[in-house]
Structure formats: C-alpha cells, structure tokens
C-alpha cells in the first residue's frame, strides 16, 4: 500500500503485505518456530532434564523386569502400559489403571522404572521438553484456549506471509543461488530468501498442518453445519462409526475417547477373574523382533494382568504409518499361554482423512526415523533463521531513512528492542531454563513452576536490557551470554548428577548425548553470530555521516547491520 493512495502492482502490494504480516506477529512466530523446532526433540529434552534417569541403561531383560516390577507395584491394576527405552528415552515409563478408576488421564497412575534394575526412580519434578512443546502452540499463563487462538491467528498470518512472499519474489529460484555477503541489506535479503526457499515446502507444510491440528477449534463451522453442532457425532464418524464417546470433542481430536472405552471394558472384565501366573514376555518379544527387525517393540500393554483373560499387546517402536496418524502395528498374545492372537483389523481410511493424518503426522514428526527427525529439526532451524533475518531486514531497510532524519523514530527503536529481546533473548531464556533445571534444589516445592518462572524472568530481562544499551551492543552482549550458557550445559550436566557426554556416548544413550551435542551446536551457532557481529564494522559510511552530520549517537550506532562502504554504495544505487 502506498501512502499517496496511488495504485500499485500486485507484487508491490504483496510485498507490503509480506512485510507487515511478517513483522506484526513476527516475534511471536519466531518464538513458536524456535520452541516448536526444539519440540522435535521433546523426549530427549525431558530425559536430559531428569538426571535421576541417566543411569538407567536397558538390556535384553528390560521388558520382563518392567513387568515384574508392575506385578509388585500394581498387582490389582486393570491395565499396565510400559513404554520401553529406545534411542529417545532412557528409562521405562510405566502407567496403570486401578479398578474403577476415572476414565481418561485422571484415572491413570504413572511411574518411572530403571531399565537396568526395575527399581522405581524418583526423578525431579520438571515439565521438561513438554513446556517448550506446549508453549509453542498454547503459550503460557493464560487459558489454553486463548493461547491456541493467538497462535492460530499468528499461524494464519504466517501462511499469508509465505504465499505473499512467494508472489513478491518473482525470481525465486535464481534468488536462491544468489548470496552476496558483506553487502548490508542485500546480504540480509539474500539470506532471508535463501533460507525461505531452501525449506519452502517445509514452511508451507508445517504452517498449514499447524492450522489443521487446531482446525476443530479455529474453524468449527463445517462441523456446525453438517452435523448440526454435534461434534461428538463428527469425531465418532472420524473414528469409523464406532460409538460416540462423551468428552472426545477436544482440540486434540478424537484420540482420547477410544482409549477410554477400551479401558472401561477392561475394568469390567478384570473383576470377574481369579489370579493366574502370566506367561514370560521374552518369547513374545523375540517373535515381535522377528516381525519388526528395524524398530523393535516400542511399548507393551497388558490388559487384565494376572487374570485368565490377560492379553499382552506389543506395539512397534516408532509408528511407521504416515497415513494413519503414525499408528504402529501391533501383535497380540494371550497373557497366560503366551500364544499369539488375532489382532483386530484397522479400518480402511478415506483420502481426506488420510490427507489430514499425513499433514498432522508430519507436523508432529510422529513417524520420524532419526534421520527424518533431524531433517525436520534442521528445517525448523532454517525456518527460525528465516524469521529472524526477516525481522532484522525491517530495521536494516530503514537505516537510510533514519540517517536522512538524523534521529531514530520511536517505532524503529521499538522494533530494534523487540528484535534483540525476542531473538537473542529467547536463546538466553531457553539456555537459562536448562540451567535452572540443574541449579534449583531437586526437592524444591513446585520446582517445575520455578523453572518456568525462571525462563520468563530471564526473557523479560532480555527485553529490558536492549532498552538500556545501544542496539549493536545489546545484540553482542546477549549473544555472548547465550553462547556461554549453551556451551557450558554439557559440563553442567556432568557436574550436577547427569551422565556426562563420555559416559552417554559409551553406553549408547543417544537421548542424553544428543541433547549435549545439540547444545554445543547451538553454542557454535550463537558464537558464530557473535564473531560475525564483532567483525563487521559498525555504523554508517563516511558519506552517509556527512549527510547526517548532527546524527545523535543512538541513530548512528543503530547500525548493527550497517553495511560496509562498498555495500552502502550498492544500496544507495539500488534503493
């Protein structure tokens, strides 16, 4: 849009839309992208943040050990579910339900078992990676429905920003192969374009699928119309015409209801049975390993344990079906004889449902093999960099205007401060979150809340700090802090009860080793930015200084990204 109201071409108006839709919720989207990217490694983060689990090393006897432990802990339970250790999890996560327990999550009891000994572990209280995961789509400290609406709206703007960005860049592919370093604004634009185009399919899919995941909340009007507002009927048909479950109509979709009904049936059956000895799980595991040599067994569910009706269901590790929401294949055994049983057939799935499942599975990384997960993570990093460079461009682009004015307009300064606080500050806050995890006393009352309070306090300080410091200085200081905090985390891990990098690599505990290595990579990335900031020359060119002679220090020093002499000349030739 032009101030003088004259008509403009489509590319110009799309460029305008791209700039403003990107900027207005850019800081929020940056945070969503950043925390969402880390969420691809949510299990690993949670493992790292519970150093009490680090000594748990699985072996061949782990499954039997877990079931024996459950026999001692919850002999009367109606179901046991053991999630077995794998490359993303170091201990056994066990849950069970007592007879007559409330349906859904409320009635489920949980514990953590050492994979090597079967002992119950008492990990410190932490939200772990779940905090970052939850924050990335429902924020924090507000009703979660508000958070989801805010993030949903920002995601909608992100979709607009992506599409208008594609329209703006007519030479999208030649742009991708163009990088002109150390040319000020040009370089920033090139970096923004390259990161945007590099992962464009990822950006489109992750944004659209984010909306699809929230669609029952954001866009309920199709269900309202076709089902007369009966969303339970919709979710019931979605599951393939099984009976409708009350309470299934949540934003998470229809998953909870089915689980509850299975458990309710199990509750009723278990009471009528007398105790019997269960078959050993070892042969079942062997049979399953032959079936799934690549992934092995992910989890074991025992229904009606210790009764004549007992069944053992083994689920393949790492769900492989993209179409069916990452549902894994299962094997069913008789719990007493150990004989295999016929598992129920999965219903066929229609293409719209398949489409929705594929996009949501992609977003959640549900199916992902380690390699794919790393690709998703790297795409997320690229997207995060794209968002950051986009917001920095807004400032860099306006440096000539600022020089002409000889002062820094209030709005420009605001964007600068928010850029530092949102981009560098989030890194500092995230690193601090991990530090608080180890520095707060393990038995502190409500300690998971204190970790989160620490995160937000540090982030708030990082928003205050650039108000008090020159722009460029603020970037450098926060980048330095982030680099140091990330780099020392693996050291802190070894010193504060966790398994050190040497030990985890030796034992093949990749969930913990992977976190430490990722922190070193993040330190390297932030360190590189810091080095680059120190190297590139500050402030404006002599020519520009002459024209803006009475410039206040704040205005000239604002040139965080001010170009070199050569770059400035290029920029002035091509405004």
């Amino acid at each position: 849009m032009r101030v003088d109201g004259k008509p403009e071409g489509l590319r110009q108006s799309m460029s305008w839309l791209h700039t403003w839709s990107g900027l207005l919720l850019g800081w929020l989207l940056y945070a969503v992208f950043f925390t969402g990217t880390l969420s691809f490694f949510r299990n690993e983060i949670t493992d790292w943040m519970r150093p009490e689990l680090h000594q748990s090393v699985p072996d061949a006897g782990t499954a039997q050990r877990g079931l024996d432990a459950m026999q001692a802990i919850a002999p009367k339970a109606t179901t046991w579910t053991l999630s077995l250790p794998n490359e993303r999890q170091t201990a056994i996560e066990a849950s069970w339900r007592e007879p007559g327990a409330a349906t859904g999550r409320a009635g489920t009891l949980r514990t953590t078992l050492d994979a090597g000994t079967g002992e119950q572990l008492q990990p410190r209280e932490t939200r772990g990676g779940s905090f970052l995961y939850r924050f990335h789509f429902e924020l924090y400290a507000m009703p979660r429905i508000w958070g989801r609406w805010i993030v949903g709206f920002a995601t909608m703007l992100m979709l607009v920003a992506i599409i208008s960005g594609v329209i703006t860049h007519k030479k999208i592919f030649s742009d991708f192969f163009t990088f002109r370093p150390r040319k000020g604004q040009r370089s920033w634009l090139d970096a923004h374009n390259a990161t945007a185009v590099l992962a464009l399919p990822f950006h489109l899919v992750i944004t659209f699928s984010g909306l699809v995941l929230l669609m029952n909340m954001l866009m309920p009007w199709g269900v309202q119309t076709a089902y007369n507002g009966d969303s339970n009927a919709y979710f019931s048909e979605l599951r393939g015409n099984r009976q409708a479950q009350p309470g299934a109509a949540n934003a998470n979709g229809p998953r909870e209801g089915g689980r509850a009904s299975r458990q309710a049936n199990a509750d009723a059956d278990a009471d009528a049975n007398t105790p019997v000895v269960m078959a050993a799980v070892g042969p079942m595991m062997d049979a399953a390993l032959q079936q799934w040599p690549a992934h092995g067994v992910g989890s074991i569910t025992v229904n009606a344990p210790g009764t004549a009706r007992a069944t053992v269901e083994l689920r393949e590790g790492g769900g492989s079906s993209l179409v069916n929401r990452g549902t894994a294949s299962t094997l069913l055994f008789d719990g007493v004889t150990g004989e295999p049983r016929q598992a129920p057939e999965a219903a066929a799935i229609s293409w719209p449902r398949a489409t929705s499942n594929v996009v949501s599975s992609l977003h959640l990384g549900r199916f992902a093999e380690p390699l794919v997960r790393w690709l998703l993570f790297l795409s997320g990093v690229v997207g995060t960099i794209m968002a950051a460079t986009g917001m920095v461009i807004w400032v860099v682009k306006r440096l000539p205007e600022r020089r002409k004015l000889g002062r820094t307009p209030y709005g420009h300064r605001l964007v600068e401060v928010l850029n530092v606080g949102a981009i560098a500050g989030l890194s500092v806050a995230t690193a601090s979150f991990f530090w608080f995890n180890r520095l707060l006393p393990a038995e502190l009352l409500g300690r998971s809340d204190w970790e989160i309070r620490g995160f937000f306090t540090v982030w708030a300080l990082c928003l205050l700090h650039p108000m008090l410091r020159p722009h460029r200085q603020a970037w450098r200081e926060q980048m330095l802090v982030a680099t140091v905090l990330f780099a020392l985390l693996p050291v802190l891990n070894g010193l504060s009860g966790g398994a050190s990098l040497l030990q985890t690599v030796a034992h093949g505990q990749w969930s913990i080793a992977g976190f430490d290595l990722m922190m070193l990579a993040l330190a390297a990335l932030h360190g590189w930015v810091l080095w680059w900031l120190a190297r590139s020359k500050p402030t404006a060119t002599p020519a520009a200084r002459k024209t803006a002679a009475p410039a206040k220090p704040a205005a000239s020093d604002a040139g965080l990204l001010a170009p070199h002499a050569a770059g400035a000349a290029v920029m002035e030739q091509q405004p």
Partner: protein
Amino acid sequence: MQTAVNHPPAASLLGYRARVASRAVAAIGGGYALAAASAAAGAVGFQAFGMARVDATMTATMLAFVVYAIAAMWAFGCATALRAWLGIALPAGTLALIAWVLAPGAAA
C-alpha cells in the same frame, strides 16, 4: 519492496491509515467470515457430489484455511478498499446462503 520515505501531510497520512485499517478489517474479519462460510457450504455442498459426510466436512475445513489466506491477500492486493470489501462479502454471502439451504434440518 518500495516504501515511501518522504513524509506526506498529516491529513493524507490519516487517510492512508484509515484505508489500511479498513482493508485489515476486511482481511481479518471478512476473511474469517468468508472462510467460515466456505467451510460450512463445503461441508454440506461436497456431500451433493457424493462425498461421505465426515470427509466432506474435513475437506471443507482444511480448504477454509486456504480460502482465508487468499481472502487476506485479496484484501490488500486489489485496487480499492471498496472492491476489497465486495470481493469478500459477495462470495461469503453466496456461500452462507448455500450452507443455509443445504444444512440438514435448517431449510426443510
């Protein structure tokens, strides 16, 4: 990526801001109304083409986000604010009418 660096008189700046605000309302509010109407119309309309109810609903809901994005770009892309409003209001009204006529138990 042209931005006007020169500063126009206050009155025209005010007018500019009003036009941006008008288009923003058209994009955000109007775009949502259009998307909602398209989700509703699609959920019942696709069934007329032989789609199962649940599939029609899901397809229409997913498409609604695409509709929203296009509506937002239309609001800022077309020549005048009036045209922006018309281009969103007319299809929204039409789709709402379709949804209303085809909705189970509503018109019958």
